[in-house]
């Protein structure tokens, strides 16, 4: 094991480097910039297998990846906030075209006004675009899951968005176990997926289709994506054998007898994990995979522990509805016979998850005339 003191951004860049990407096309945006710079410095030092291209916009970054992955190349890009929003058309196109692209998104609020804090609405608002989304809670997860994402994408022929919080993870330096190049390359291997554009082979790729044919394509994409938790678990089993650690799409840390659990994705899960000893009678459910939503796995956890209250930490807000994670959890647990009360703690805009908020949220119980939506600022 070789621990390095690195930031989340550097961890993401190292993972792309270790994956032996053929091409990186990217455009800088705070707080993702260090990923771009780190990859550029790898190229400058002759430490990047493929090419690094600075393009003129995020839209072009993802378009560039489209062209290269169509030819069978392994590609990577990274963005944040407005950059992700600007890519929206290409984001949809990638999944429709079944391109196994890996993209990192570093959460940052989408304006107006200009805000740098890590609201998760940038990536969550892309939830219906056919990309798998995995949220990381620390820099180690960023490295490991970004590396694994290439295998997941290439197996399912679907793009993966690896997501983590701006600043809390992107700019915080943590000790990360970074596998040696050879070991990482051996684990991941060269890309195995079929190129779509093959010179000399006639093909009319992604041309005009019909609603009828599209239904079949959408259905296939949906059914393939539902296999992601299983594939992710397989990859992590193999990963654990080599590197001694592995992850599940959703994981629970519930003390004996606890009937309340915080449910969090991203750095807030890490915050809750460290603060758990102070939160009597509370557990943690860390949601990593958001698309596909691990409905069955989450239901099993709730039933197994007999949880009667979930406090969902939503550093985001779907205006007019509430937190994205709360919406999704409510829908996922609807079919349970004993449904837990859902308490939605809104940190929209990207405010810090502090002790006041955690203890305040934990103290409010359904008997207290609890509203289902709590604005974080009210608990300070």
């Amino acid at each position, binding site marked *: 094991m070789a621990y390095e003191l690195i930031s989340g951004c550097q961890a993401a860049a190292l993972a792309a480097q270790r994956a032996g990407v053929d091409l990186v096309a990217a455009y800088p945006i705070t707080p993702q910039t260090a990923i771009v710079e780190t990859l550029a410095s790898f190229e400058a030092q002759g430490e990047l297998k*493929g090419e690094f291209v600075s393009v003129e916009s995020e839209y*072009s970054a993802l*378009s*560039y990846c*489209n062209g290269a992955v169509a*030819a069978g*190349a392994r590609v990577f890009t990274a963005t944040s906030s407005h950059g992700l929003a600007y890519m929206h058309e290409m984001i949809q196109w990638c999944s429709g075209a079944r391109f196994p692209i890996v993209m990192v998104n570093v959460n940052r609020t989408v304006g107006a006004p200009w805000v740098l804090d890590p609201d998760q609405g940038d990536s969550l608002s892309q939830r219906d675009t056919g990309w798998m989304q995995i949220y990381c809670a620390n820099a180690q997860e960023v490295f490991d899951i970004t590396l694994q994402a290439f295998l997941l994408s290439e197996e399912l022929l679907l793009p993966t968005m690896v997501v983590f919080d701006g600043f809390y993870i992107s700019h915080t330096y943590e000790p990360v176990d970074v596998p040696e190049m050879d070991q990482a390359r051996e684990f991941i291997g060269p890309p195995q997926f079929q190129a779509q554009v093959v010179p000399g082979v006639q093909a009319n*790729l992604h041309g*005009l289709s019909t609603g009828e044919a599209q239904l079949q394509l959408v259905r296939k994409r949906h059914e393939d994506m539902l296999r992601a938790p299983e594939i992710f678990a397989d990859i992590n089993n193999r990963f654990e054998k080599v590197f001694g650690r592995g992850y599940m799409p959703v994981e629970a840390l519930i003390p004996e007898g606890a009937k309340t659990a915080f449910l969090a994705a991203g750095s807030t899960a890490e915050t809750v994990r460290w603060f758990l000893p102070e939160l009597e009678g509370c557990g943690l459910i860390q949601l990593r995979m958001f698309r596909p939503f691990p409905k069955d796995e989450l239901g099993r956890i709730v039933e197994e522990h007999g949880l009667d209250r979930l406090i969902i930490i939503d550093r985001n807000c779907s205006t007019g509805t509430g937190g994205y994670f709360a919406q999704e959890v409510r829908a996922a647990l609807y079919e349970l016979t004993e449904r837990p009360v859902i308490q939605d703690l809104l940190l929209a805009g990207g405010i810090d998850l502090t002790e006041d908020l955690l203890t305040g949220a934990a103290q409010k119980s359904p008997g207290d005339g609890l509203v289902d939506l709590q604005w974080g600022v009210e608990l300070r």
Partner: protein
Amino acid sequence: MKITDYTMENELMYSGHNACPGCGGALAVRYLTRALGPNLAMAITASCWSIIAGAPPLTALKCPILHCPFPSAGAVGSGLRRGLNAKGHYDTTVVVLAGDGGTFDIGLQALSGAAQRNEDYIFICYDNEAYMNTGMQTSSATPFGARTTTRPYPLFKHGQKKDIMRIMAAHGIPYAATASLAFPQDMENKLKKAQEMKGFRFMHILSPCPPGWGTDSSDTIHLSRLAVFTNFFPLYEIINGEQWRMTYHPEKTRTPLKEYLEAQRRFRQVDEVTIEALQEEVDQDWEGLLKRVSTSNVEK
């Protein structure tokens, strides 16, 4: 090329494609695939060719076609080139095909980025001077005086057609050229010349659109020729953004612009005063072009 080369076996485009009768864009691609083929990979952005190429698994071309969203062509072509390189397909010629919307308007950012990076592929703009696939809406390639469905009668397009060739020349790219369907040999020469070069190459092909321009489907070649003869669409090439060279000089064939305008229903509302003003503009543009050509240090 010998006349015997112009046989169906050498065509990379199938008959039975989805273009309208007399489509300039269809003819442009037939010429260019024949000139550049057969080892081609083509990225096609949203345009009439999204339809002309046919519904998969049917196809109008014998080479791989990668369709891509409207603003993306310049970048998709760049990625395709480097992706093919990564897979060892260095000899494949990458062509991006875009209409005037995908070149002059919504595609300009990606086009400019690719040109500035001197990406190694050929960008073809088949210019039918409006959003023809959606039914003749104004683009920045629509000429002054033309009527469109977003500048309907008695209105017409005001403002000059964007000078895309000077924009591309300003990027200092290795090669840029205009081409006309009425001069297929000239087009072929330019394409082959472009194919032998490295870096970013750009070709602007005027592509008459019978339903959009209000012309007979049998007039496409005639109009293409008139556009050259009237100096509305001169034939030239630009090497490295600075060496301008005429490839056809209509000294004896010079024709008044009026004849070109009157042959198209889209210009029907234009009065004599406007025609005179347009003629003056064409004359000025022509003088500017001649000046650039004469001051260019062209290698003989």
